[in-house]
């Protein structure tokens, strides 16, 4: 590792020194391509964020890809119904690594106003790992921009080697997440226990 002071000094002389990890993460963080994928009203705010007024292009994230094979980021924008949940997981599995998920709005986080209903998933984090959650109903485009910035920060701080490297760089970990199947009343299983456990209440 190079010292920060020396690095600064070299930069003044016109020599830029960096690590491969930094360079790699810098490139990734500034070209996060989201999947064109909206489920409810939050998608309207997502569209607004990508338009000229809020201009998601400033963060290099304006290239909404119509195919999961070309996308890095899944913005779960809206209510995930139980009927839709297996398809969301399948789309996530089809995205190439490294991939990230933003849960946008109350419904994607927890089911929102439909939480105690029979047909809505109580949060998308039951089946896929969520990196950034944006509260709001729906969140404003600024909130989505903040989420993108938070995600960029997260990407910049990711290690490529060592024990705390991200999941996709560990060869022994299974890549795809199990897709739930439709049951008689609910999805089976109702959550992925490796990812999510019901909250424990202190009594």
């Amino acid at each position, binding site marked *: 590792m190079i010292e920060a002071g020396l690095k600064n000094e070299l930069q003044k002389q016109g020599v830029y020194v960096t690590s491969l990890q930094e360079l790699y993460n810098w490139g990734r963080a500034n070209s996060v391509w989201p999947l064109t994928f909206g489920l409810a009203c939050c998608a309207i705010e997502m569209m607004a964020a990508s338009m000229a007024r809020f201009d998601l292009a400033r963060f290099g994230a304006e290239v909404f890809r119509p195919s999961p094979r070309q996308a890095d980021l899944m913005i779960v924008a809206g209510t995930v119904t*139980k*009927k839709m949940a297996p398809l969301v997981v399948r789309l996530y599995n089809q995205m190439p690594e490294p991939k990230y998920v933003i849960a946008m709005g109350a419904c994607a986080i927890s089911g929102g106003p439909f*939480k*105690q*209903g*029979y*047909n809505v998933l*109580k949060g998308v984090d039951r089946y896929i790992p969520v990196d950034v959650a944006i509260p709001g109903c729906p969140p404003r485009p600024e909130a989505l921009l903040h989420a993108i910035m938070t995600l960029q920060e997260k990407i910049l701080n990711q290690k490529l080697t060592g024990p705390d490297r991200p999941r996709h760089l560990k060869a022994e970990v299974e890549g795809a997440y199990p897709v739930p199947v*439709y*049951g*008689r*009343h*609910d999805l089976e299983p*109702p959550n992925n226990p490796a990812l999510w456990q*019901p*909250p424990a*209440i*202190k*009594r």
Partner: protein
Amino acid sequence: METLEQIKARIEKSVPLTKLDILPNECPLGERSLLVEAGRAFDVAKFLRDDAQLRLDYCSNVTGVDWPETVIKTKVKKKVVVEGVEKEVEETIETLRSGHLEVVYHLYSMALKHGPIVLRLRTENRADKTHLPSLTPLWRGAEFQEREIFDLYGVIFDGHPDLRRILMWDEFVGFPMRKDYVAPDDFEYEPTPHDEVLVEAKKHYPVEVDAVAATTANNLNKESMNP
């Protein structure tokens, strides 16, 4: 447009063996509707669509309604002679109204710019005789809405071209919009439950919820004491 009575008379004249009822509606608009026997419903609907004076060519909306079996209480005043003195006594009469499923069609005419005519169809009961004729062959726009009613209420539309569930998945069992539908008990912790959710929460987390309710009540008391 003609009055509903005139339309009813003309239908009964043109479509053989038809008996129609005009149902009142207690809402401020007072939009009355035609109750059609399930067996003749298709012919009546065809008449309404093709008749030169009506030409109801647009079915704007199809809705399901669940009417479970209920006891209706009506109060009647009665004069009774008690010990030689005539007295007025109120008496409640209980009548059992059998349950049924209802499908409501709202019909308009785009050509003649009038409407709506409200058409109501009822099934025999809510358990096994839930068949009704499909009106999709007459109004194509009714297709998905009839599928939705099949999905959520369990009305079986005979003659529908593609009767499958539309909102719930195919493996789903039950009809969630029926009044007696019991959703699976998958309650999950909520920090601030209220109303029906509070009742559910008390079942699942009895101690915790009572403690929360007590602290909020205490806080309210303190606030009211120190304004």
